[in-house]
């Protein structure tokens, strides 16, 4: 069984540390991973769709606010200057966003939530020495993950029921909107509480004890592929950190090699 989980943890880390120049290389790397994970690029785009508004707003704000050390004016609108730096800055943010989403997509598409929980517990296991409730937290997280789709279903259901009672969730004055939201949130909370109570009872009825010594139905084994992916990811991450901290300029290097 693959312990791909760790790979994922490294991912979100490296996206934050990458530099603008490295972005392209990382993008290539991640797209390769996407292909290996058999995720269609279309799927990535469709999950990006929801972010479009955010991207546009980010672009807008970033382009309008000049960075501190801006000096190169790209063009002027009226007497408002747009700087190259701010354009680059916003492009960088968008690139990061895309990469982050691609990475989380890989994580969720390749890893079962249960495996994620195991990984979480495993990572926190050293903390058990100082009485840290690793298992409880892992369990809470896995329950939370498990109930996201359920709650989404519930939300849709209540929205439909309230829409049938004449609630308009899209239009209306602020006061009406608050009322509409209230008519959704109150029943949602009620059913969530009810559900959690039922779940707790069901768990207790089956003898669940968080302090008890537990065995696992599925044993995770370390395999060659895990070592391989761990080494690969470590190398890529190290490469990113080293290059960004040493300020290598690839374009110059390549240019000098060519000439």
């Amino acid at each position, binding site marked *: 069984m693959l312990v791909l989980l760790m790979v994922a943890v490294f991912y979100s880390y490296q996206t934050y540390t990458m530099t603008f120049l490295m972005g392209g290389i990382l993008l290539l790397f991640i797209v390769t991973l996407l292909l290996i994970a058999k995720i269609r690029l279309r799927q990535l785009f469709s999950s990006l769709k929801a972010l479009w508004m955010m991207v546009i707003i980010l672009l807008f704000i970033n382009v309008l606010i000049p960075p501190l050390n801006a000096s190169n004016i790209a063009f002027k609108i009226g007497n408002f200057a747009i700087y190259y730096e701010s354009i680059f800055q916003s492009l960088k943010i968008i690139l990061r966003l895309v990469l982050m989403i691609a990475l989380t997509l890989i994580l969720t598409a390749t890893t079962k939530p249960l495996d994620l929980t195991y990984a979480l517990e495993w990572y926190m296991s050293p903390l058990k020495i100082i009485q840290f409730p690793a298992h409880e937290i892992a369990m809470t997280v896995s329950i939370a993950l498990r109930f996201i789709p359920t709650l989404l279903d519930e939300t849709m259901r209540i929205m439909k*029921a309230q829409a*049938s*009672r004449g609630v308009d969730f899209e239009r209306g004055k602020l006061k009406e909107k608050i009322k509409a939201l209230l008519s959704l949130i109150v*029943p949602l909370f*009620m059913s969530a509480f009810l559900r959690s109570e039922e779940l707790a009872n069901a768990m207790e009825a089956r003898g669940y004890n968080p302090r008890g010594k537990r065995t696992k139905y599925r044993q995770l084994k370390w395999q060659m592929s895990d070592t391989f992916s761990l080494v690969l990811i470590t190398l890529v991450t190290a490469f990113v950190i080293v290059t960004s901290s040493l300020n290598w300029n690839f374009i110059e290097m390549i240019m000098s090699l060519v000439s």
Partner: protein
Amino acid sequence: MSIKFSNVFYTYSPKTPFAFEALNDVSLKIEKGSFTALIGKTGSGKSTLIQHLNGLLYPSSGEVEVEDFIISKNKKRRTKKIKALRQLVGIVFQFPEYQLFEESVEKDVAFGPRNFGVKKEEALKIAHEALSYVGLDESFYTRSPFELSGGERRRVAIAGILALSPDILVLDEPTVGLDPRGAKEMMTLFKKLHQEGKTIILVTHDMNLVFNYATNVILLDEGRLILQSTPLELFQDEEKLASLEVPLIYEFMHLLKLEGLELDYSKVNTLETLINELIRAKGLKT
């Protein structure tokens, strides 16, 4: 005619790996003033079908007409007055007790009319009427819906839909989870509403309800329309019945028939009519 489906298809999450065709070429008519039972296995498309009736879902292709309203994928053709449609067609969803949210019962029931622009005092008056309809008296008006029992909460929720005074009332398994007496009272209420001229569409798995109350039956399977007829025709159709549970009365009559008693099925739909028919068959005088 009140409701017409013409070649309606509906696909959930189209163009994804999870695409699921819930309705497949459904064409049917539901007459004004009828009591129609919508039956079929879980996942046969019943709930999807009823959501088309008030424009919660638009067909992937095909069209639904409800009175003058048109529900279609085509944005130019479909009705703009979605609110008016929702007032005409009231849907009581499964387990409606989970849609209550106001601090008092009367406020919750008045919430619907208020959304349709009714003034506060007027809405409360309508709410009180609707509550008395479902058998909840004044002592309930100011109580919180969350301190009521499950059955009472369901009554409040149903009153919330009745308060909109819809001409077409759609009920998705309204008796599930109620005690037998509560269920009977519920059905009596719907029967009364039907007699007052409302069109009732009842989604159910309970064939006894179909037999006792419905004037028409629609049978769906895997999103396809299998049969549209009267309950009597359905329960004589051995082949279509194969996948359904048979009403108790019908089973009883079937056994009597095997014993050699000549019964006219078409005359029986309640316990009383069965007794009459038995008396007739045995040649006894009343």
